[in-house]
């Protein structure tokens, strides 16, 4: 069972307290009505499916209830980093 660091609680806690919430940094378009069908399809369905570091959202569902962002290596299943929702995508990742 993974340990996940909640950036709001500032505590590292068991995976059981958290739920996965899909890929991160996919913002809802400000005005969806201006989107073409293709753009809207991409927003709805097209995901990175990364092999390696993956930017994704988690929720501390059985804790503070906050959504936050994480970088997880999909090969090793290890968390590299977590950070608060709304913070920019980190430019460099820890080794």
């Amino acid at each position, binding site marked *: *069972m*993974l*340990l996940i660091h909640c950036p709001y609680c500032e505590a590292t806690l068991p995976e059981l307290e958290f*739920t996965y*919430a899909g890929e991160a940094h996919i*913002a*809802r378009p400000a*005005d*969806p*009505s201006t*989107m073409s*069908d293709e753009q*809207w399809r991409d*927003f*709805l369905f097209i995901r990175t499916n990364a092999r390696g570091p993956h930017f994704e*959202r988690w*929720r501390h*569902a059985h804790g503070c*209830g*906050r*959504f936050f962002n994480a970088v997880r290596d999909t090969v*090793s*299943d*290890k968390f590299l980093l977590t950070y608060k*929702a*709304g913070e920019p995508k980190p430019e460099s990742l820890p080794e």
Partner: protein
Amino acid sequence: MSAFRIPGKGRVCHDKPVRFTFDGKQYQGLEADTLASALLANGVHLVGRSFKYHRPRGIVSAGSEEPNALVGVSRGGGREEPNTRATLQEVYEGLTAISQNRWPCLHFDAGATADVLHRFLPAGFYYKTFMWPKRFWDRLYEPLIRRAAGLGVPPSEPDADHYASRYAHCDVLVVGAGPAGTAAALTAGRSGAQVILADEQAEIGGALLADDKVQIEDQTAADWLSAAQAELAALPNVRLLARTTAIGYYHQNMVGLAQRITDHLASPPADAPRERMWRVRAAQVVLAQGAIERPLVFHGNDRPGVMLAGAAQIYLNRYGVKPGKTVVVVTSHDSAWHTAFDLADAGTPIAAIIDTRPAIDPALTEAAAPRGIEALLSHTVTATSGRLRLRSIHVNAVTDGKVGGARLILCDTLLMSGGWTPSLHLFSHTQGKLAWDEASQSFLPDLKTEACHIAGGGRGLWGIENALQDGAKVGAEAAMAAGFNATAPALTTQNDRSGAGIIIAELPTDRGPQSTRSFVDLQNDVTSKDIRLAVHEGMHSIEHVKRYTTSGMATDQGKLANMNGLAIAAAAIGKPPPQVGLTTFRPPYTPTTFGTFAGYHQDDTFDITRKTPIDPWAADNGAVFEPVSLWRRAWYFPKPGEDMHAAVARECRATRNAVGIFDASTLGKIEVVGPDAVEFLNRLYTNPWTKLAPGRCRYGLLLGEDGYILDDGVIGRLSEDRFHVTTTTGGAARVLNMMEDYLQTEWPDLRVWLTSVTEQWATIALNGPNARKLLEPLVEGQDLSDEAFPHMSLADCTVAGFPARLFRVSFTGEMGFEVNVPARHGLALWQRLLGEGEAHDICPYGTETMHVLRAEKGFIVVGQDTDGTVTPGDANLGWAIGKRKPDFVGKRSLARPDLVDPNRKQLVGLLTDDPKVVLEEGAQLVDDPNRPIPMQMIGHVTSSYWSEALGRSIALALVEGGRMRMGETLYLPMASITHTAKVSRTVFYDPDGQRLSM
């Protein structure tokens, strides 16, 4: 005392005899015996029949790697277990064990005809033989195979035991308590670190329990071990867990430990759990699992009496048991020589030691000579004989790779050793990388992914001194990595009989390849011939060889078989073993009971059952319940003599004609509060909310961004900045999660707060023409007239003296009210309303009646009439969309080309031509029953009921282009009959809605 037990020898209690039975025959063992050692002490080697060929099999090992000695153990009364390893099961007074996979008895097994027919049962035979004719599979082949194959019989009664589970944290977890693990735990324990030491045996000590020659720090191994055990037990920061198997190594140093608590007790305390699962999170893990001895692969190597040499050493020195009357040793490793010497010194004649190697340490042959043991170097074993027990073997010299003539040696026991395989199962669970070590011809741990350390035999070290010193060093490293100051003690030894050996895939033989039956995987009956056949037939990956032959796929996960199988496959493929690779070990390390995994999640605590405040009344009044997500809800309330149909019909009549009372407390309720609450709901729900006045409510529809219906419910506005949102029973958590998601991440600027209030309110629905007459006299603070309180109103008031949030809404088409009171008053209000309602012919109804009444009105149930691909338009809910709103969740998708297609499946009503026929929900619809099969399906029935109000059946269905098919006849082909039905509107009853104010 039996002829095979040496008085006074070993760690068993010679003054504490224990009686047990095996296959109905009574035997005597000693306290601290395993079932295997006790049977061997009685001269019993034959303990089971093999999986595929039903060949007689004996005890091979002395540990959890045992492939053959699997027995059924029973205490009666729902306490029985198949496939218990006799090498781990301790004997107790009254233990009852039976052999498996034999009929009618172990000595004569009818299934052994499979052995005669072995030529017709090669590797992958079930892929080849049972393909045709297809219809024979279900009726003949599968039942036959199921009866003939498999080990043990599942218990027929529910498990009467209970199980426990526990979390633990420590600085250093040491897995395995042999010399390396014991030294590691001592070193780490002395540093003050919190240490857990786990070992699957009944006593900690590992190899030290079975070596009476080695001296450690000038003490005997037994004395040193006693002192170590005492010191570990006295250290308050060390927890010793014997009879505890580390079954899996999971992420971030979480290790699962399965502890056996009562299986060794003659009369377990009633309150003791049988087993306990520990989930240990360790800062540092020391893996000291040691090494597992490899069998040798030769013709007839599976006969009872053929045993691993290391196991014989354990039986001799730990249990005081001699494995037989006349023993021969065949080996490619020095360790088996020392077993032979120990046996000879204990008075067992050793007929010969056969070593495949041409040259060995001369000290070994010099030690053999004075004991009168014939040493045969560069020799091989080519055959064995004896039906139920080994009688003789064929021994041949090997000269320049050529096998000479056979010589017969009489013996009842053959001890074999093909060297030792480092046990890396747990390390493999971490996805740690292995590296091939050419010198030892084995895989050793290489790149680590976790904070773990491997000590002793597990990383290829051999000998007690090496293991002790490495364990101490690694224990110190682990403690220091966890932040403690530790120093490794020196731990020197004398008489440490270390040694070396070579790995040999298969013994040389003079037999033709077609006539050898050399077993590689004893538990799954896989021979070397099977593996070569698999390679010949094109399986060139070890993963394919494994699945085709089933080698390594038995419950022992190939602990004995895998390395031999790999060597044979690699030779057949013509590649070195590291290029062929190893199959992946997976948790659990050893077979683990379901009970241990389930822990407390059993019977009443198997899962959560949510109950409403009114549930006790329903239970007392004969309700039949149904599960709805985690809730249990009253389904219907049968009176004596009523079946479900009669009860539901009566409940429906009463509600339409008088008044029905319904427990709606499970509805999800979310309070949405804040200055931006109305803007939040505008963005989230399809409907417009700005103009909804306080004191009024409205049906709300929630979509996903993909445009499909996700949830619905009535939303009431309590004040400018406060809304009471209801959701479906099953959707409450999902909707709150979605609201939180948008609020936290997309619109964090909105000043809105969300609170789940589902369990704060008990909700009682009153529906029917008498609803207002019943309620009116009980309400204070609100006029219930149509003018003051029309349909779709809400108000704070009191009902029967209880503070209430009162809604006028209807999910039945009748005049309806939903009274929310604080949950603690729910039951009292329910009883009060029932009492007052007697004068108005009140009738409690359950969820089935609720479903019928709503279907008569064409109201959808999300998740029943929708399935995640239904748009508002499909469900005739286009009216619920705020057309002038610039945006809401899912709006853009409603313009997707595929969602505006007029031929989409749309929700329509169905009226069967025969009004008595109630269609099956899920039944498929076609427009022409005479089309060839497979027919094109155009839709399916989503809801179907007997409508008591209409005196006929009704149904809702999703049908392609359904709204353009009004009046059209559609067909529902069932197994024996084809029903016909006409497409109709979805509102079957009171289409003008006049009854809402009756």
